[in-house]
């Protein structure tokens, strides 16, 4: 008899045993599909950074909205991730005027201008892991993924660059989490090249796409679970507002000490030099 059962009344113990029998019996009748390969998501090697939604959800998110001005349809190469050129060191502490929108989803939060509609928000959906946290702005955004299944429990997915449309003077900002299966070794890579408020980040610029990598608590740059904020705009004012979004970004305090680099404390920040 285990310690917890010693404090149960006979009736409670009887209920517990009924529950145990029920769960085992039903699970035996409908066992989990854990055969070889059932849980090996082959797509992990073929997806590109920032394109993470299953096709069904991606299609649902492929909404075109709020193009209030004459649209300049500019299919751009999204998801620069670490592909772009590092930008010069920069420090900013801009805040958003007025009452900003506030995005909060479990482990993270950030502010964004009220004029930027939420194009897509995380569903934490039934379809699987959601890597795109949110997309805001006054253009349109959709993923570019194809998926399929093989058998009853194996699936695949391939994604190309996001399809982003930015109106003149507009912006689309995608907040996403970069991740992947294979481990990324800890290399002491914590040197930021820009600082926005409390967030020391690694900034890259690739044409009209500016991306900021924000380290997850305990992480170094380049590791899974870091957050990227990716702004698609050629408008300086819009870019400044995106920087304010980065300034407002916060992680929830770390809950699980089993992740991250041993040498890193959750609050460790390496400011831009």
């Amino acid at each position, binding site marked *: 008899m*285990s*310690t*917890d059962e010693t*404090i149960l*009344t*006979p*009736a*409670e113990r*009887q*209920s*517990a*045993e*009924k*529950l*145990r*029998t*029920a*769960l*085992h*019996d*039903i*699970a*035996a*009748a*409908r*066992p*989990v*599909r*854990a*055969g*070889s*390969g*059932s*849980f*090996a*998501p*082959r797509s*992990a*090697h073929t997806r590109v950074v920032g394109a993470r939604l299953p096709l069904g959800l991606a299609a649902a998110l492929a909404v075109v909205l709020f193009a209030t001005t004459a649209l300049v349809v500019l299919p751009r190469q999204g998801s620069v991730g670490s592909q772009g050129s590092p930008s010069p060191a920069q420090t900013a502490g801009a805040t958003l005027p007025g009452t900003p929108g506030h995005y909060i989803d479990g482990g993270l939060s950030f502010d964004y201008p009220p004029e930027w509609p939420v194009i897509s928000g995380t569903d*934490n959906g*039934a*379809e*699987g*892991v959601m*890597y795109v946290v949110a997309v805001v702005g006054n253009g349109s955004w959709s993923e570019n993924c194809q998926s399929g299944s093989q058998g*009853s*429990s194996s699936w695949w997915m391939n994604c190309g660059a996001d399809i982003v449309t930015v109106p003149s003077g507009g912006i689309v900002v995608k907040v996403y989490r970069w*991740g*992947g*299966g*294979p*481990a990324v070794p800890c290399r002491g890579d914590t040197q930021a090249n820009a600082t926005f408020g409390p967030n020391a980040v690694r900034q890259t610029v690739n044409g009209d796409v500016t991306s900021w990598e924000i380290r997850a608590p305990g*992480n170094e740059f380049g590791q*899974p*679970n870091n957050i990227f904020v990716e702004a698609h705009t050629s408008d300086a004012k819009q870019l400044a507002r995106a920087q304010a979004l980065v300034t407002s970004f916060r992680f929830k305090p770390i809950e*699980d000490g*089993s*992740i*991250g*680099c041993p040498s890193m404390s959750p609050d460790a920040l390496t400011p831009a030099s």
Partner: protein
Amino acid sequence: MEGVVEQELVLAARLGDEVAFARLIESEAPRIYRAVLAVVRSPEDAQEVMQDASTRAWRQLGGLRDAGNWPAWFRRIAIRQAIDRAGRVKRRQVREFNFGSIEDPGGPDPTAAWARHATVMEALAGLSAEDRAVLGLRYGADLAVPEVAATLGIPLGSAKSRLHRATGRLAAAMGDSHEY
């Protein structure tokens, strides 16, 4: 699974070995599936939660610092996915249990299994997802209370009290509370 073997599999999986990852999942899936089943109360949803959890685990495996923590780490992912799923189902009220829609893989009759245990499974519906999680981990996954605490990320004392309260609520919901 031997701890050393398990850690080797984790290391291999972190390097992209999908077969190693599948073995890890297979070693842990049956028991955590029963806990997930308690939370979502639907084999169909439980299957999806397990798939989601395994996908998430694969993607985040690089962030698992200590390979020896694999079982608790994966269980935590799965049970959180289950609680999250249960919350969404409750909020949206769009999904109901529908055993008939599941492809029959053969073997024991799942409908009959559900019918045999309808009372207890329906009683679970009156409990919170968190209560169902602690009950599922203890009586479905057959985890010891310290393991339940580790999976939920709560202190041992909290796990004990939560388990006690949840069991009491289950007994009350089943009408068993007066039988002693």
